[in-house]
């Protein structure tokens, strides 16, 4: 019976939070597509889309609407169930990772504290890694079910790329966990607020993590699974209508979430830099709002860098990708881990 004894308010609070975060993820993903096209334009001496509404702010709505009204084609030779499962899985995994990220300082009210985090589980960051590695199934199933050789090659590329780059990513993360001594996201943020951001102590670890995040999000220069000019859009070649939209959207949500995770792990999460916000004497909800805004600003910077990199660097060749992952990043990440372990032991 004790399962039923869960506080109803608790469920309501979490449900509202989940809806807000999912809504936020969609909103940010929508406007990242616009930002992508705008920044691409600016970097190429163009204006970018500016016809739909002022400065083109309705462009994502128009794009989404177009995808909804497009004809939906399921190839006869495809495996129908898996074909439908692919984009759904990609979207679900993209959204689930947002559950452990602390989005702002907890709101302290008279009746208790409301953390701006759906689940502050003990293995927080490991959950993210677990879900991200499930995310590769979205690509693999989609590519396999399409029954198209380009899609299959892309799916294989995507799988191998994700597996290869999760290793250095995890190794870079271990060095961070040495410093916090906890996998809990809230404690990772708290320890950074107390001792300074991890990027100061772990610059190499951050660079490795960032490169791997690019690879995990299938962003240029690691966008081999959807190489337009060699694989014809890769794993989502056979997809049309909103199923294609789901894949593309999941990619942007992944970008948003990985930016949030990088901000949380290395840039202090919702911590406001250079100030002691507790001494301002502000209302707790206002403080939470400001800290949420700070996290969003950090995420926006990361998203800009993601886009900036995309419009600068051409795609890696497959062998370059593999040699960079296995021969360069893994040894570097191992070295980084060993050195930080040694330094921490020595400081003790």
């Amino acid at each position, binding site marked *: 019976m004790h399962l039923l004894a869960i506080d109803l308010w608790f469920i309501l609070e979490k449900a509202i939070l989940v809806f807000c975060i999912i809504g936020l993820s969609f909103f940010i993903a929508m406007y990242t597509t616009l930002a992508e096209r705008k*920044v691409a334009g*600016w970097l190429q*001496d*163009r204006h970018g889309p500016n016809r739909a509404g002022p400065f083109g702010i309705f462009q994502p709505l128009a794009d989404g609407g177009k995808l909804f009204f497009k004809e939906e084609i399921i190839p006869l030779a495809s495996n129908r169930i898996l074909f439908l499962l692919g984009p759904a899985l990609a979207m679900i995994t993209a959204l689930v990772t947002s559950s452990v990220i602390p989005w702002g300082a907890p709101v302290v009210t008279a009746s208790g504290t409301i953390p701006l985090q759906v689940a502050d589980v003990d293995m927080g960051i490991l959950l993210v890694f677990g879900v991200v590695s499930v995310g590769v199934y979205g690509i693999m199933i989609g590519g396999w079910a399409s029954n198209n050789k380009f899609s299959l090659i892309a799916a294989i590329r995507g799988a191998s790329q994700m597996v290869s780059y999760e290793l250095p990513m995890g190794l870079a993360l271990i060095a961070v966990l040495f410093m916090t001594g906890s996998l809990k996201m809230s404690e990772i943020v708290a320890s950074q607020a107390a001792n300074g951001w991890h990027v100061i102590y772990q610059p190499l670890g951050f660079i490795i993590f960032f490169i791997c995040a690019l690879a995990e999000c299938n962003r240029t220069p690691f966008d081999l699974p959807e190489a337009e000019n060699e694989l014809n859009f890769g794993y989502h070649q056979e997809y049309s209508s909103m199923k294609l939209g789901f894949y593309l959207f999941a990619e942007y949500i992944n970008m948003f979430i990985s930016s949030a995770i990088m901000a949380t792990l290395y840039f202090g999460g919702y911590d406001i830099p250079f100030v002691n916000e507790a001494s301002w004497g502000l209302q707790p909800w206002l403080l939470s709002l400001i800290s949420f805004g700070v996290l969003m600003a950090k995420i926006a910077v990361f998203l800009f860098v993601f886009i*900036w990199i995309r419009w*600068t*660097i051409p795609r890696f060749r497959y062998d370059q990708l593999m*040699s*960079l992952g296995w021969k*360069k990043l893994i040894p570097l990440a191992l070295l980084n881990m060993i050195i930080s372990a040694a330094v921490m032991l020595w400081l003790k």
Partner: protein
Amino acid sequence: MQLTNRAKPVDRSPMTFLESLYLWNIIKGMGITISHLFKRKATIQYPEEKRTFSKVFRGLHVLNRDSDGRENCTACGLCAVACPAEAITMEAAERQPGEEHLYREEKYAARYEINMLRCIFCGLCEEACPKDAIYLSQTFAPANYGRKGFIYKKEDLLIPHPLKEMEAYKKAVGDRAGNQ
């Protein structure tokens, strides 16, 4: 044999470990792209903003009128002969008594068509015309949904009447007013 002094030898030495991480070169490249963020945009926002053409720009054809508003064209067919793309078709007609205010000479073009899809805008018709009746303006053919819309009839080509529609006439003449 060396032809110029501009040849540069290509460095084919194998990459060092740091180079093979591509980081430094990527940062250099990102510096270049970010500098373009602040550069002037090359785009011209078309319907609102239009590119200014040179005075000798060869655009859409205009069939000219004289200062009294009479059509200059006598349907001699020299433009059609001169046209390398064979884009011009015409049919001549005789001026009837009482039509002197419409046509300058006793023969005129009853039908005059230019296929703008065939036309190469070379301006040879303009050069061939002995009556100064056709010249190329500074506008270009707008987009259309069908091929038929690109066959410009006499009504589409005739310049506005200089006395009845002065504003439109001045606009159509444009920079070339002095050449008449």
